[in-house]
């Protein structure tokens, strides 16, 4: 496969010449029971790529192994708990679910346990962005709320964390912080509003079919606290789906790092680099796994980040009750908050509640495959492999064996991601670096459950900002390292293209 040419800032090219230091990254967030030699051999055998595309691989219809859930034909398809969960864990899941859908209110209020929202926020409840535990969506019109979508903010510069090579230093926007909150508690002006406009661009495929892609442009309007910095960087984000996260967290870091190919030594046009971020909880660099640029190493840190950034709620990991408010937003910092010393760990969201939400997020089950053995679907699977889609969307892993975490322990899973960063070309670039990810790199998103998006979410919007309105549009947006695979799809005859989509819909 021919290497594609793509743009990458010079500084990154120089940095890539340095050796990766991945071996120091471990799974300290998990109670790992080391694999025996016998297990390792068994794992290697089951992870071998398929050779016969006329029939299913063993266990292929259960994407989450024993944690896979029965397919519901309702919008609840992503809201089931891991099928192998013992009864005693169900309480934690249910309590976590209740906190996930809980509507927080601004302090002070009559329900002291529920207040502390904001003062700036994007949403009042987790589930208001993660609708039905599925994907968020773009605004339906100029007047529609932007709740399940927001902008990350930064400016270049600032300090780099110790011990992480190739870090691209950025810092919070001096006035508005790391994220644009478009809602505010009574008495406060909202930070600003996100604007988005689309330009339709027709793309003609090899067989003459025309697909329209909508290219977004983003802006901010109605700033409530003065002008934005001249060198403002923005990155639009739609809330991703919630299923299978605990299993992604349980993939051995070594298995992910083994897939790195920063210099494209195998000349397949795909490099793949690990995101590495400082862990707040563990105080060391860790492999980034969660978020659209893999900016969080664990579900707990991702959840705590969302409590702080999206809802302005303090946790053990982000103890500031004002969330993302900067010193320039003084009234927000001095406003009443929802915590007092000695009550609920002195936080708005106490340690137990953060653990419950983390447990919930770790255990949303992945539904079983549908129509996996249909001839058209198997044909699409063969095409997926022939186009090297699996070069980034790596099909399967076996998770770590874990003590006291049976739902995620030693499961054969099929998430279709390498959890690595890839340059996706200028079309998808947000030009806002995050950690080691450049302004054109994104983490490969998992594909499991993708065929249920329309059923769960009532739309079929994909990619980091929901710009693609179908799976085909999403594929056609792929550039950079994925340009060859994208061109391959664009060159397929219609029946093959439909088979490929049928395969994706079965995931």
């Amino acid at each position, binding site marked *: 496969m021919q290497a594609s040419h793509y743009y990458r800032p010079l500084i990154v090219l120089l940095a890539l010449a340095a050796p990766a230091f991945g071996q120091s990254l471990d799974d300290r967030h998990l109670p790992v029971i080391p694999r025996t030699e016998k297990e390792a051999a068994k794992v290697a055998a089951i992870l071998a790529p398929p050779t016969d595309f006329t029939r299913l691989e063993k266990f292929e219809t259960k994407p989450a192994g024993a944690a896979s859930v029965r397919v519901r034909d309702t919008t609840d398809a992503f809201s089931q708990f891991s099928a192998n969960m013992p009864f*005693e864990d*169900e309480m934690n899941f249910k309590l976590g679910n209740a906190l996930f859908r809980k509507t927080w209110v601004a302090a002070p209020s009559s329900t002291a346990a529920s207040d502390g929202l904001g003062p700036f926020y994007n949403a*009042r409840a987790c589930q208001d962005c993660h609708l039905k535990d599925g994907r968020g969506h773009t605004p339906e019109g100029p007047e529609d709320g932007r709740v399940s979508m927001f902008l990350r903010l930064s400016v270049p510069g600032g300090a780099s964390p110790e011990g992480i090579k190739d870090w691209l230093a950025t810092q919070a926007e001096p006035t508005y912080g790391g994220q644009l909150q478009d809602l505010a508690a009574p008495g406060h002006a909202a930070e600003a509003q996100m604007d988005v406009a689309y330009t339709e661009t027709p793309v003609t495929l090899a067989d003459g079919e025309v697909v329209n892609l909508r290219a977004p442009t983003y802006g901010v309007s109605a700033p409530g606290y003065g002008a934005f910095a001249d060198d403002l960087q923005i990155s639009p984000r739609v809330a991703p789906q919630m299923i299978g996260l605990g299993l992604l967290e349980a993939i051995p870091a070594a298995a992910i790092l083994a897939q790195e190919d920063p210099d494209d030594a195998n000349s397949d046009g795909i490099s793949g680099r690990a995101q590495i971020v400082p862990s707040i909880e563990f105080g060391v660099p860790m492999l980034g796994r969660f978020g659209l640029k893999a900016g969080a190493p664990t579900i707990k840190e991702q959840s705590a980040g969302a409590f702080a950034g999206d809802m302005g709620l303090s946790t053990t990991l982000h103890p500031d009750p004002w969330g993302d408010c900067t010193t320039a937003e003084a009234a927000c910092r001095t406003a009443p908050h929802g915590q007092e010393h000695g009550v609920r760990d002195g936080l708005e969201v106490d340690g137990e509640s953060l653990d419950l939400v983390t447990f919930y997020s770790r255990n949303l089950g992945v539904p079983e495959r549908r129509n996996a053995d249909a001839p058209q679907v198997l044909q699409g699977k063969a095409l997926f492999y022939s186009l090297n889609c699996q070069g980034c969307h790596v099909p399967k892993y076996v998770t770590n064996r874990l003590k006291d975490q049976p739902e995620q322990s030693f*499961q054969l899973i099929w998430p279709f991601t390498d959890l690595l960063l890839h340059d996706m070309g200028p079309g998808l670039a947000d030009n806002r670096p995050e950690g080691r990810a450049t302004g054109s790199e994104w983490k490969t998103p998992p594909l499991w459950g993708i065929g249920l998006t329309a059923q769960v*979410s009532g739309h079929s919007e994909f990619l980091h900002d929901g710009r693609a309105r179908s799976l085909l549009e999403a594929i056609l947006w792929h550039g950079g390292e994925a340009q060859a695979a994208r061109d391959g799809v664009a060159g397929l005859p219609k029946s093959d293209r439909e088979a490929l989509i049928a395969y994706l819909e079965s995931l």
Partner: protein
Amino acid sequence: MTRFLTAALVSTALSAPAFAVEPAEVVAHYADLAAAKYGDSLITAQALQGAVAALIAAPSDETLTAARDAWKAARAPYQQTEAFRFGNAVVDDWEGRVNSWPLDEGLIDYVAVGSAVNEENAQAGLNVIATPKFTLSGTEVDATTITPELISGTLHEADGIEANVASGYHAIEFLLWGQDLNGTGPGAGARPYTDFAAGDACTGGNCDRRAAYLTAATDLLVSDLTYISDAWAKDGAARALVTADPNAGLLAMLTGMGSLSYGELGGERMKLGLMLNDPEEEQDCFSDNTYNSHYYDGVGIRDVYLGRYTRVDGSEMTGPSLSDLVASKDAAVDSQLKAELDASVDALLAVKTAAEGGLAYDQMLEAGNKEGEALIMGAVDALVTQTASIERAVGALGLSKIDFEGSESLDNPNAVFQ
């Protein structure tokens, strides 16, 4: 296999030595119990339908009270069906239509000022009753006529937000009682009957549309309960699923008992409210009927194990039970589980008794209410305790949630790697 017995005969049957029973007999009787419980739920919902019609025809304190009483009567058999959730696919796929909670009630009707503010749920303050035409997810909706189809197809979970509960028991409860604005203090919702009155006597505005909503929601409940009753009838899909593979049926029975005990009732419905001291976390929050709902959940769990049910007409059903089956494998597990099921029902009865004595469930949730906390945690602890024995019963019967690699033939498509 179900036997309808008089009380005298029941005591005779219970004192006789346990018969050896077959799994197929146990699951068939379980399906009979489901048919009876959902059938009773339907009968009492039809009575509610009549009481609602009487309320709307002649609104008064008496007809409103009668409708509220009918709602409470309908809850008793329904809550006893909840142990049939969590494992019966037909029930699980259907349940959200009838018993979803908590709800942003401002979607449906007027609420107190300040209680429906939620920017990201644009529908939290929609007030369909006052708004015949509106835009939902970018689509124009004509709600001039409020129909069951409008409620189930358009309003329920509008915008994908689970709190937009438009149908089921709790939507009807809100229309009959109104918001409970007493927090953790005494008192339930106090909607006046004049909210359904015609002409100038109407309070709250749009009384005709409120009546139409209540009628449509009640009709929808009846049709939803008809669907699930049919599913447990002789050739119904839910019955077929448990009887086709008796071991799968037994597992569904025990899974329902365990999941309702631990996660759902003990966790989400009881412990959470204490954690947050939040009366909004009370299940029947408008009517203050929560203690009854919890109690009948507990009775339903016990009855699944014992294979029995007292119908709303007073007749008793008994038959081949899980208890018989477990006793034949491990008598100690059976006797312990039976004792623990009795203990949890007793603990839930203590909550009910206290509530009927004046300490309402939402008052028990108040921060610092030691008596309330002890009552609720007593029930939670009993539910947690019995779940461990339910797991032992699963083991005693040699059942497992998961078919592991090698446990069946090599071609078993349901096996998982281990």
